[in-house]
């Protein structure tokens, strides 16, 4: 009896399920006094509503069937709505993409225009009305050009 009370105390003092389960399995299930404090399956069944006392079970399937049919009817509508949404989203993406490409590569701008350095050229340099020899220096990563001109000997 004292042991049962002590187990009860241990059960309530540490509300950890594993610990409580250990106590139940170790003592309470094997102790006749503690087992008497638990309702039997028969006693529990008296309070619960069993399957055979449930009436009008026919309604369950008819309600489920009508809801399944309703879902089936709704599904094509939702699919159609999704199709429209996907088409509209794709169209918007295509338009945005086209505008972006046009802005990047369009006339007067963009990478199709040659860089400044590649356009630079010297056709003719003269010193005292005589063609001269020209040397062009272009430092790396700079827009500055150094031109050295010498008379041709």
């Amino acid at each position, binding site marked *: 009896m004292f042991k049962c009370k002590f187990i009860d105390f241990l059960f309530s003092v540490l509300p950890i*399920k*594993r610990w*409580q*389960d*250990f106590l*139940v*399995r170790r003592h*309470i299930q094997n102790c006749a006094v503690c087992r008497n*404090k*638990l*309702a039997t*399956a028969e*006693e*529990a*069944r008296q*309070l*619960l*509503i*069993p*399957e*055979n*006392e*449930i009436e009008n*079970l026919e*309604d*369950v*399937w008819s*309600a*489920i*069937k009508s*809801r*399944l049919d309703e*879902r089936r009817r709704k599904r094509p509508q939702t699919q159609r709505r999704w199709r429209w949404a996907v088409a509209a989203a794709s169209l918007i993406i295509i338009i945005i993409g086209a505008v972006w490409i046009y802005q990047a590569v369009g006339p007067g701008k963009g990478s199709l225009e040659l860089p400044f350095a590649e356009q630079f050229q010297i056709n003719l340099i003269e010193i005292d009305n005589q063609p001269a020899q020209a040397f062009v220096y272009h430092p790396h990563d700079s827009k500055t050009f150094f031109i050295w001109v010498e008379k041709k000997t």
Partner: protein
Amino acid sequence: MNDNQLLKECLRGDTEKFKVIVEKYRGKTLALAVNVLGNRQDAEDACQEAFLQVYSHLNAFDFKRSFSNWLFSILYKRCLDQLRKRRRFFNFFKKSKGVYEKLAGSQDLRFSAQNPLPHGMLEKLSPKERSSLCLWAIEGYTGKEIAEILGCSPSTARIHLFKARKKIKSLLEKEHV
């Protein structure tokens, strides 16, 4: 035809086979839901939701598992949904009743709200305790099977059952005294 064969037929699109499954389990599921919720209308809603969920997620079912355990675990979650809905409704009802009473003065407003739980001993148990008690006493499930349905460890399920049995016993003894 066993459950798995019926389910495979359902997956091929045979709705009539699903009817067989519903008819086989409707009593058990409704009994569990009524015992957990204490209300036939809510229990029917929970059962319908559970069967619809089963039908729409049949392809996710693991055929190595027991179908009834899977169905009961879904039903248990739908019952908890119903209890949450009911709690929200009662919170709203309490607030609106307070406001309405203030507006209407001291008049006795006879709000006939549905009782959240059935009168009796079962209302003293938590939903987990009621579910485990019901599964143990009616279906004869073990702690491990109850744990699978409640989504907890077997030791936790055993403790829920233990507490439910203890509470019920003490209530029964008080009633006899």
